[in-house]
């Protein structure tokens, strides 16, 4: 039952959020893992992660070249088509040059919609960058307070932090069930569980996750399959048809370090001390995304996930024109190879093209299964 609920949310995320707007809730569109959603939540708004759509882009092509990448183009397309008018506003962080430009374009072409840019450094090292990072977060807080007309109360923020931290812990438990041998949670359900958290309120999501974990505890794990456990890496995976395809090829996702996965939820906020500072520190110290420097903590996260899940190979799902991930890929491929772990690169534009991907994945799974990799 809960699996169906999670899955249904993802059929029409914008439709779902429109319903809240009609009910009088304020929904804030968020783009990037460096938007402190706790602030938005504490200001009694619902953060909705914008993940674009698989629809073709036409209007946005007037303003952004194809090589800006599908995510930025697709989100701009949604806005230009009027599909985001129900949102109270949009919050972006400078996760790529394309997303940074999206902010400028929003101001120019989506008149009347509140938009905020959290202009944090890309370099998460050094005293100066730390100071500037903190300042950018505080400026966002102030802008948000001005927008809502009420100050961010410490007590409200503490409650939000607790809700978000619980969400993170529940998702980590789900990840542990995914990695168990045999898996106690299917990869498809895990992905639905993670992605639905970008749409649902965190309270509702927590409720669903608790139900899901409870149902997993009661169910007998399926020992029938001999699926090859693989790790999936990349900035974004929203194509839900990919995991069934993987299974048809004889493999499953046993762990991930996706930008729309564990890198989003892995790190908790310290619940002691000043809550504003604690939130800021969480985002400063979180596992960095591919567009942040240094890359080492992200690499260590990937390795620890592989060790935990005993994944036998890695599939990198990388968005076309996502420079940051494309630079990392050969480095990481070689590092993995040195550890005897094979990897495969798949290009995506929010969707993975079916038959070509199937052939490549099947070949890769056969190699991993056969141990032919050297």
């Amino acid at each position, binding site marked *: 039952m809960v699996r169906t609920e999670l899955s249904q949310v993802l059929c029409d995320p914008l439709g779902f959020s429109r319903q809240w707007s009609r009910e009088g809730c304020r929904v804030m569109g968020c783009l990037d893992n460096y938007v402190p959603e706790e602030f938005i939540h504490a200001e009694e708004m619902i953060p909705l992660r914008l993940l674009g759509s698989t629809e073709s882009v036409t209007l946005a092509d*007037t*303003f*952004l*070249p194809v*090589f*800006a990448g599908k995510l930025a183009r697709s989100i701009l397309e949604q806005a230009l088509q009027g599909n985001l008018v129900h949102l109270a506003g949009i919050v972006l962080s*400078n996760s*790529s*040059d*394309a997303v*940074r*430009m999206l902010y*400028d*374009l929003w*101001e*120019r072409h989506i008149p009347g919609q509140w938009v905020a840019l959290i*202009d944090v*450094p*890309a*370099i998460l*090292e*050094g*005293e*100066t*960058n730390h*100071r*500037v990072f903190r*300042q*950018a977060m505080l400026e966002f807080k102030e802008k948000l307070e001005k927008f809502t007309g009420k100050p961010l109360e410490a007590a409200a923020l503490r409650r939000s932090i607790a809700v978000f931290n619980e969400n993170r812990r529940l998702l980590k438990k789900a990840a542990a069930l995914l990695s168990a041998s045999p898996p106690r949670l299917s990869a498809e359900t895990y992905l639905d569980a993670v992605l639905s958290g970008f749409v649902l309120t965190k309270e509702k999501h927590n409720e669903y996750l608790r139900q899901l974990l409870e149902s997993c505890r009661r169910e007998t794990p399926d020992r029938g399959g001999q699926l090859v456990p693989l790790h999936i890496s990349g900035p974004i995976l929203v194509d839900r048809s990919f995991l069934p395809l993987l299974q048809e090829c004889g493999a499953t996702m046993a762990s991930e370090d996706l930008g729309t996965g564990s890198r989003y939820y892995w790190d908790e906020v310290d619940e002691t001390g000043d809550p504003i500072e604690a939130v800021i520190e969480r985002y400063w110290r979180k596992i960095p995304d*591919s*567009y942040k*420097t240094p*890359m080492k903590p992200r690499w260590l996260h990937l390795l620890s996930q592989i060790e935990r899940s005993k994944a036998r190979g890695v599939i990198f799902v990388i968005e*076309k*024109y996502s*420079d*940051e991930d*494309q*630079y*990392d*890929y*050969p*480095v990481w*491929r070689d590092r993995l190879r040195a550890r005897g772990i094979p990897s495969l*690169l798949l290009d995506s534009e929010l969707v993975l093209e079916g038959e070509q991907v199937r052939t490549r994945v099947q070949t890769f799974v056969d190699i991993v299964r056969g141990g032919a990799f050297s």
Partner: protein
Amino acid sequence: MTTTAPKKKGRALNSSYEAAIVLKEYWEGAARHRAEGRPVAWVSGNVPIELFWALGIYPVYPENYSAVCASIQRAQELCEEAEERGYSIDLCSYSRVNLGIVLGKGVDHPDLPYGGLPRPDMLVTTRIPCLPQVKWWEVVREFFDIPMFVVDATMVDLPIRESQRQHYLGQIRELIPCLEKKLGVRFQEDTFLETLKLSDRAAEIWLELLDLRTAVPSPVGSREMCGNVFPLVAMLGNPRTIEFFTHLRDEAKQCVQEGKGALENERIRLGWDNIPMWYNLKFFSDVEDRNAIFTYETYLRYVWGGRMDLNDPWTAFADKHLDVWLNYSINQRVRTLLHDIVKFKLDGLVFHQNRSCKRFSMGQRDLAQVIQENLGVSSLFIESDMADPRAYAEAPTRVKMEAFLEMLEGKKS
């Protein structure tokens, strides 16, 4: 003073022949510095270049080297070397050329221009021109396993905010002791301030030269000027830059005073937005057969070498490095372009949709729309790449350019 080569057909300014000599001196100087055991840093566009000259660290520019490789038609093979190693064809072609060298034949392969790239002791880069630059440098760091410093900055709307200035300067205050510690050099403020003076003097002369190109007829076109810009990128703070730019400026000044243009019959004045196609600078001079001249480039005016008010040197230093086109918001680009199109009396603008420079290319459609609406100035878009010739389609681009010129001619008559 270095003797320049005799004037050949096609160069408007004799002094432009000096560019190749200056470039050779720079790369030979880098090799000599390395051979003598003095520190070499690989740096990228918009790093605080004066600091390196002041500290006696030779700043080596792989980006320029990639442009050089492109200009002698060597870029494609090097890009392919990088692609064979897994680097996507969609990545910046400067970086693919560089990674093709680093991961392929090696930086000191004798087959490479100027005998190769001197090995770095340290890497210094910045996010000012773009975010992927930092990622490219991370790959290089992975290979050489040497220290790296990244100067961060957020994009600006002018005037620059104090917080942005302090962000930049704070990092410079961290960079200096880092360079001292890692490379065994010593920072002396007097030397640095002298270097800033040299840098600013060079920038002043360069901007005077560019302003001379507002004259009708224009004394010099883009093909030559793109070849002349290099010292402004890599040699600010080096007296040789002042010498070279003075020759260019004086000669252009004389041309303007005499009413002598690069074209005998200049009819159409064009501007160029984005990095040029280094393998095809001829694109700029081809239009001259139609009595058209490219006399303005955002790349030459706003990417390198702004002025500094040296009464407040540190503030000026920060502002100069933040105040660059690639770090401008779209609104700032719009304001700047609207001003310059009038100043340079441009009839049309050519936007290079450069696959390798997204920061430059995104927002161009807005610029074109605004200049059409506000000034009635038309634009042409061409899709290509700054270093990888595979992205350039000769025939359709020529047809588009011909049609554009015909349209502009029609508007004039």
